């Protein structure tokens, strides 16, 4: 089993392995097998298309946390120039599960803030698997307030399993840190665009997710609880995660239908990790367009629209 492919992608993995093998033989054999390779490549593409056209929410949630999925830093280096990372909450520590700093988007100075996961074991630990502690949220808030002061638009990238459930995190006020961000982000005097690039894990995601626009990558997810967590509470069995993923409606298309997401950014065939430059290009274009629209409004209108947008969340009846 090829670990760079998910379970439902294994047929694609097998074809790709065959192609690799043939390419290798083709290099030193006299026979021309280029035709055969081209045929297999076309077949692999068709297979990928057919598998990806019918993904279930559970499969999408696996893609959202694919080990090869691009993380915030992968996008920062492709989308922005002049990125300067800024560290620390000025109170306790520098939480490496959230990164932030100033940068330029097509020449415009902006503040970029995002969850950061690690690629190898060492970095995974350093980044705490992308699960921030209170100091991470407080660093984010410090940078956001600074951005508002210097009139820099804020672009956030969301990719976390959730806020870290640990003893120290509770001692230092995880709840308060998240709540404070929700409160202050509602009235930041600068445009805020939030993009879910992988896992949008509950309050830990929302704590850098309040703004004027919510964008989602095609195969990212956004949910009040992980499918596994939901399954173990409501179905009393983590095995039911697949059912929970379906019921929770965590995919970009479902959330767009429900009016909770403004825009979906299309991913390359096979997912963002198959062509990081392409997806980075798509994100850059979407951010530039949305930012262009938001900067035409006055700050007062921007804040009023943001407030009304937040107040409109919710479905109920009234007699």
């Amino acid at each position: 089993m090829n670990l760079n492919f998910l379970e439902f992608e294994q047929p694609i993995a097998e074809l790709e392995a065959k192609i690799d093998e043939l390419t290798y033989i083709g290099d030193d054999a006299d026979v021309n097998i280029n035709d055969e390779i081209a045929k297999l490549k076309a077949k692999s593409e068709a297979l990928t298309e057919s598998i990806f056209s019918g993904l279930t929410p559970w499969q999408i949630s696996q893609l959202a946390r694919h080990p090869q999925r691009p993380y915030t830093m992968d996008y920062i280096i492709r989308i922005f120039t002049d990125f300067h990372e800024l560290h620390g909450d000025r109170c306790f520590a520098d939480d490496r599960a959230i990164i932030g700093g100033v940068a330029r988007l097509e020449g415009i100075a902006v503040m970029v803030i995002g969850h950061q996961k690690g690629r190898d074991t060492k970095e995974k630990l350093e980044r705490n698997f992308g699960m921030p502690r209170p100091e991470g949220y407080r660093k984010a808030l410090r940078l956001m307030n600074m951005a508002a002061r210097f009139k820099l638009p804020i672009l956030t990238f969301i990719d976390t399993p959730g806020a870290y459930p640990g003893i120290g995190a509770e001692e230092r006020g995880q709840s308060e840190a998240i709540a404070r961000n929700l409160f202050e982000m509602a009235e930041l005097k600068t445009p805020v665009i939030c993009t879910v690039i992988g896992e949008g894990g509950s309050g830990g995601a929302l704590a850098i997710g309040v703004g004027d626009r919510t964008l989602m990558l095609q195969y990212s997810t956004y949910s009040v609880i992980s499918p596994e967590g939901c399954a173990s509470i409501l179905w009393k069995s983590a095995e039911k995660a697949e059912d929970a993923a379906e019921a929770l409606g965590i995919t970009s298309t479902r959330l767009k239908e429900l009016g909770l997401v403004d825009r979906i950014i299309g991913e390359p065939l096979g997912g963002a990790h198959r062509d990081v430059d392409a997806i980075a290009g798509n994100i850059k274009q979407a951010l530039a367009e949305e930012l262009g629209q938001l900067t035409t409004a006055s700050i007062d209108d921007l804040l009023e629209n943001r407030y009304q947008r937040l107040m409109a969340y919710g479905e109920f009846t009234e007699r």
Partner: protein
Amino acid sequence: MSWFRKLVPSKIRTVGGSKRNVPEGLWVKCDKCSAVLYRSELDRNFDVCPKCSHHMRIGARRRLELFLDEGSQQEIGTGLEPVDILKFKDSKKYRDRLNSAQKTTGEKDALVVMRGSVEGVPLVAAAFDFGFMGGSMGSVVGERFVRGINSCLEEKVPLICFSASGGARMQEALFSLMQMAKTSAALTRLSAAGQPYISVLTDPTMGGVSASFAMLGDINIAEPRALIGFAGPRVIEQTVRETLPEGFQRSEFLLDHGAIDMIVDRREMREVVASLLAMLTGQSAPAA
């Protein structure tokens, strides 16, 4: 069991099936100290155990009745009812869970909001009903909270919220999560209008409610020994794989770590809140 029964001396044997002649609900056992308490005595004592001062969980309506001046109450957002927009079904349908919660609590949803006064100080008070699906926050809870704030803005009065909640309601999925953003944003208007907000955290206040308006009070008060936190103790234990310290996530722990301003006994809540609010809103001391 028959062999065992023979071993037990006759004086401590109880005859199975025969009911004793005690009316249901006349006596209550304290969950904490196991003292057997007379129901009406407990009622008079605000559902606080007279023996060990354990604060028992109480419903939203009872909470507001204990807190607000008699005859001052006017409920807000009574017409709001939850809908099952996602057609959510786990082992049970959300609709069925709602119906059974509405039947057992007599409430439409987990938050009750009222205009009223406390020792003559006018205010809006909100209270969670933990019995309604664990006091979970869905769209109706969020909307009622916001309407409570809107009423504060119109009447120029302060807001008090008594939280008791397991967090966001899973059956309303991302709509529930967004209630955290909605309620917290509405508090910015209250703050801008210069009206105080006192958050009272009662047992238990966890997850999405704790990580939004419950922690945003100008003054955060907790009842004694209430469980308050972001992640549940079991989740933390599974994550960090160590035993949690004694008293972890209890009111006293939060006070020690600077998360709340004070711990107030339920029997003194009215007096303390009225006194605080009178000072924050520039009124003379309330006539106690």
